């Protein structure tokens, strides 16, 4: 079976809710039924076959071609299956994803991996603000799984993050790891202002020296035994993080945010 492929015929002026096209929802549907699904497009509904040319039959392998930045909620609550996006993805990509994998060969909008539970999200471009964050008003963001971003991420990456691993090959914007409850965010590039703002627990693993606020205290330089295990777990990933030359176990440890619980850490490569 070939992958079920949705090719955008023409970009829409209004945003499109793509959540009905997640693998687990299409499992038992025929192509005709899938074509008849109505997607919310601004204030009106749009049939799938109005927006996309449909090819292929494997509903557990979805490809979206010519994707553009107004396709929101792609791979929402994904459970098993794979979704590949060729082009840009809108907001809330892989929101609540439970398992499976999502790959975006382009940039993504706000709230990618919002409240993601498990699985693998690879963004071969840049990610917008609130990557792996919680919906406004909710208290827990990403709760598990792995996110790889090959480009840069916007502000507040990992906001309210509860568990899981976020690997950023590029730069991170301001407030990276803000209000983080636990989990690991690794950033190879630079980080912005207010790093780890109100962070409770968890680890920010950095390759570059950050500008830290006064509420993160220097705990000295250390060799940490868990780091080789962490890096070993990256070995299977398609990422710079898998490169053994990038691994290290010697770090400068900063504890904070002392204005919060103060049990979080910023580890900077030495």
């Amino acid at each position, binding site marked *: 079976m070939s992958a079920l492929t949705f090719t955008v015929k023409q970009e829409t002026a209004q945003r499109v809710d793509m959540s009905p096209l997640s693998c687990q929802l299409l499992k038992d549907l025929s192509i005709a039924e899938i074509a008849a699904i109505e997607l919310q497009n601004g204030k009106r509904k749009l049939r799938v076959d109005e927006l996309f040319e449909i090819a292929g039959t494997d509903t557990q392998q979805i490809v979206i071609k010519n994707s553009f930045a107004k396709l929101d909620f792609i791979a929402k609550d994904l459970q098993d299956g794979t979704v590949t996006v060729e082009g840009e993805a809108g907001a809330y990509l892989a929101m609540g994803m439970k398992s499976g994998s999502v790959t975006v060969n382009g940039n993504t909008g706000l709230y990618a991996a919002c409240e993601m539970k498990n699985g693998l999200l690879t963004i071969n471009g840049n990610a917008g603000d609130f990557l792996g964050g919680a919906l406004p008003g909710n208290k827990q963001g990403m709760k*598990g799984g792995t996110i790889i971003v090959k480009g840069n991420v916007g502000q507040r990456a990992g906001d309210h993050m509860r568990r899981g691993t976020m690997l950023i090959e590029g730069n991170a914007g301001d407030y990276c790891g803000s209000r983080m409850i636990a989990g690991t965010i690794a950033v190879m590039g630079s980080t912005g202002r207010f790093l780890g703002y109100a962070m409770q627990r968890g680890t920010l693993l950095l390759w570059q020296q950050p500008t830290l606020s006064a509420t993160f205290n220097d705990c000295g330089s250390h*060799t940490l*035994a*868990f780091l*080789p*295990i962490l890096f070993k*777990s990256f070995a299977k990933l398609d990422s710079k993080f898998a490169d053994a030359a990038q691994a290290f176990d010697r770090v400068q440890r900063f504890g904070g945010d002392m204005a919060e619980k103060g*049990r979080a*850490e910023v580890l900077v490569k030495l």
Partner: protein
Amino acid sequence: MIINGVSIDATFAEAFPMKATRAIITAQNEKWAMISAQAMTGFATSVIACGCEAGIERVLDPSETPDGRPGVAILIFAMGGKGLAKQLETRAGQCVLTSPTSALFAGIDEGEQIPLGKNLRYFGDGFQTSKKIDGKRYWRVPVMDGEFLTEATTGRVDAVGGGNFLVLAQSQHQALAACEAAIIEMKKMPNVIMPFPGGVVRSGSKVGSKYPALGASTNDAFCPTLKGITKTDLSPEIESVMEIVIDGLSKEDIDNAMRVGIQAACDLGAANGIKRISAGNYGGKLGPFHFHLQEIMA
């Protein structure tokens, strides 16, 4: 059956079901991993009074350990799951957590998960942090030499304890030499430990005692100094008997270890004073696992 002049008794060793787990201790170098492992498996020769039976399975190359440092694999056996969990936690807390540069990992993933460092984390007084990596939870406990890293749980599996054989020799030093040769070969086998000092026990016991408070007492039928005054199992030329006890993760593991051990003892042969190989049992009524010597050596 006679091998190299050594008579193999038509008898069997009787063994019991136990619960077991493996733990991996790593450290800055093999020396400190071994020190920690020796401490953790100390005073663990017999469940009769130690609460568990434990031993060092083998030294691990850095490429075999989770954190890429030199390590030692240990096996711990107990009569029940609760007892095993208690012994594991107590020993890990007092012997590994305390040992410089050490880290502690699960050596068995399958089976019911029992706490390894799950509760030791509280030593961190709230400063401990957890990391879940590839589905496994680790605890990082701040300690004075840096950080104690431990996996939260390890797998508990069904196992077999009490496999054994006796080496009957013309002299004490010949019995010991045969046992030493056996232990060298048996230590090469996976999934088994020989929990007694150096792998050898010289005070094999029988069930019961003339003293009501004691559940076990000296195996007088195999005590050479009592040959003339008790219902002995020894012929006149036997002057010393030593026993090797084996605990293993499966009956097959014990079979294999007994085979290489008995063979090594027999290789010394009658010419070196090794006269008989026998085994300890309770008439077959107590333990469900029977290791028939002649079948193993066939």
